[in-house]
């Protein structure tokens, strides 16, 4: 069964690149440009992995993560944070909220792929 990935990223070029490499690897990718509708999208697509940016219009990625973790239905959902905000403060905050993986832009495509595979599980 194909891995379903929900990609929440406002930068169109990055969204295109990440979608491209994941889809070539056989994933189903749903993408989203803002944080506000993220929870609804999770409910709709029931993804195996969520890739989340921090700087998002409307609602920040950290806030989305907090709400995912707060809902029992999505508390265990693997989340990969992929952000240009690479400061220690941002990483610590994300980890405190229970992020599964934290990667800073620019990223290596291979590492993103490996992370998604690992998070999606066997």
């Amino acid at each position, binding site marked *: 069964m194909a891995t379903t990935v929900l990609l929440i990223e406002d930068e169109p070029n*990055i969204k295109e690149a990440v979608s491209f490499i994941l889809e070539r690897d056989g994933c189903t990718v749903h993408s989203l440009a803002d944080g506000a509708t993220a929870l609804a999208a999770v409910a709709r697509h029931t993804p195996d992995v969520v890739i989340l940016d921090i*700087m998002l219009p409307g609602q*920040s990625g950290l806030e989305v993560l907090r709400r995912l973790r707060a809902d029992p239905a999505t508390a265990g959902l693997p989340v990969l944070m992929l952000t240009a*905000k690479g400061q220690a403060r941002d990483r610590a905050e994300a980890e405190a909220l229970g992020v599964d993986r934290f990667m*800073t*832009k620019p*990223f290596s495509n291979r590492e993103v792929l490996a992370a998604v595979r690992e998070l999606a599980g066997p």
Partner: protein
Amino acid sequence: MAVADLLVAVCILYAALLFAVAWFAERRARRGRGGWLRSPVVYTLTLSVYCTAWTFYGAVGFAARSGLDYLTIYLGPTLVFLAWWWLLRKLVRIGRSQRLTSIADLVSSRFGKSDLLAVLVTVLAVIGTTPYIALQLQSITLSFAAFAHTGPEAGGRPGTAIWVAAGLAVFTILFGTRSLDANHRHHGVMIAIALEAVVKLAALVAVGVFVVWGLSGGLGPALDAIDAAGIAAPSGGGGRWLALIFLAAAAVLTLPRMFQVTVVENADERHLATAAWAFPLYLLGISLFVLPIAAAGLALLPQGSNPDLFVLTLPLAADRDGLALFAFLGGFSSATSMIVVAALALSIMVSNHIVVPLWLRFRRDPATVAGDLRTVVLRARRSAIAGVLMLGYGYYVYTDGTAALASIGLISFAGVAQILPALLGAVYWRGATRAGAIAGLAAGFALWGYTLFLPSFGDSLLMPAGVIAEGPFGIAWLRAQNLLGTGGDPLVHALVWSLGANALLFAGVSLVTRQDGLERLQASQFVDVFDRAPGPVAWSGGGAAAWDLLVMSQRILGPEAAQALFRRAARGQGLSGDLPDPTPDFVEMLERELAGSVGAAAAHAMIRQLTGAAAVSVEELIAVAGETREIMAYSSRLEEKSRELARTAEELRAANEKLTQISRQKDAFLSQISHELRTPMASIRAFSEILRDTDDLAAAELTRFAALIHDETLRLTRLLDDLLDLSVLENGRVSLNIEAGNLGDVIESAVGTAVLAPGRQTLAIRRDTMRETVPIETDCGRLRQVFINLITNARKYCDAERPELRIRVTAHRGMVDIDFIDNGSGVPAAQRALIFEKFARAIEAETADAAGGAGLGLAICREVMRSLGGSIGYLPGVGGAAFRVRLPRRSAAIAAQ
């Protein structure tokens, strides 16, 4: 005249000796080695100023005329010193504790520091003392004449008197006004007085011994001679005898000079214990040989000889010139010591109670009082001394030395005795009031003047003989020496009337009038001087309530300290509550405490106000004014300082806030730079890895990804360009391309670019192209950059349903304003100060900038406008977000910088 010259020489030598002794004593005292100057013996000897020339010469005359009457003059003081010495002790104690300077001061101070009483007593003392001084001058003149001319005729030579008066004035001024402090002891004067006391006693005893054993042939014959002369019994009835004793006793208490030596010059209260027996002994010594001398004079000298001069004429008649000279010096000593001390005492009273108060009252500028006051007091005292002596001399010339020595003395005694009721009331009767004292003194003074003093001139302008004999306007019962038909001995008559009215009025008026607060306080301080135990009578009457005092003290000392103070005092008084009785002790203690905070004068004035004693003296007011001025100046300095500090603190706080914000902005700036750089780099890396790793890319994909990489590198380049641009602009090193143009063209171009640029929103733009036609001379490319930025911002951020931007141009002289106003909700007030800073938006939230700007736009605009010589600012209160660009029409000059 050789004898006269010799006498003058002796007098001058003796005077020189006195000057030397006085000078020596002053020097010792100033060097703090005057211990022996303050011995009880010296004190007792100075008390002998009581014994004047009247005693020395007059007592013999008195005895020759009136027998044993003369003894009363010694019995009065003896009784006072032996039997009533605790009254003296009380006076001395009060004098010390109240720092009294004279008897006038005592009476005034006790009755609420009344100026009127002080003046009254001073005037009374001056009038009462003047005849007495005249008497001394007369005695000196008489003795001089008797000695030099061997003729006892009355009158002598007034020339002698004026020289003596002048000499004594010089002496008294020299040694009596060395220190301004009237409380200061006059060691020089006192030691000279003590020396004179020894001289006069020795002289009189020497004459007495010579008369008894040299002339009369022993003690037995001398006593027989006394019996033969018929002078061993009182002249009048018991009434006169008692009146004389009483008069002498009163005089020793109330004579200004006696108060001076007894109280003011007293160095140690214990000296009184010695004086209590030694002074009566001295008086005994002085009086011992009076009767034998009188008897011998009556028996041996020719009929009609002046008995007042027996002391001198007996040795002269026996050709004992040496002894006669000694006797003369004794009389000289008696007269001069009295005059000196009396002038001293009177000058203090006159200057303190008449001259200085008048001067203070009519003085306009209080600022220089302290300095001038010294001069005024000094001059007042010196002229008072001269004045008193001139008065005495004038009286002497006016009466022409007619009255007998003894009668002048008694008139004086009766005059100053008027002070007695007030004095005794002052120290023994707590209920005595000022009104009572004034009424009594005034009445006694008036009656004394009417019944005794004025008639003593005989037939004079002041009281013609007819008036004395038949009464004023022929009203018989008003006859001066026979009021209401109560004739008899004129002295007793006057004494009974004046002192009787005095005492009755004093007591009666005191009973029906009330004391004010200060009087109550002083009454208690005087009457209870020994056991300053609070008299309930003194304070329960109202005035000060402890509660008022507490309220005031809390304001000054603070609530805790004040309450603790009052509790302690209450416990000290054995009371259970927290409020002590406002006893004088407590009030005094409180005043001291308050003085530590607000200054002595202010504390005194406040306490007085609360204790109901409103009378505040001129000096106190001046002192309060001085203190208040100082305090006000000080506190205004403090206020100014604290305002300054507050300003500085506010500035520092603002600066600190600004710095904190700038620091946060710098952090945010770095973070934002990093973010802005990482995003395009992430795209570039991702696509380049795809290109590298993917072998089977479609040709279309290959082209597209390469194009995306290219776009992202351009974006990176733009960002770096902006950063560098801003840096250059901020450093003021920008090179401008100034050219002539038209504002409308620049706006047109900017609108076209901004609206066409990629973006989500559409923005309606309203312009008034007519008004935009303004010729300008500036860097049109830079200006366009600014306009594009503002229009793009409106496109990005205007949150209205149908976004609309109004561009309004207003031309002024030399300047032109271009406003960009949209219809959104505008920039929140809190952020307006920050929007022109770099990456201002990054501070706001984690949320990304949807429009994708880096937040350098407005910062660049600000720097561009600055370099064009214009400005850009936010326009509050217009509606939506509104920016005003102000541009000089010609930027060249400014841009050249």
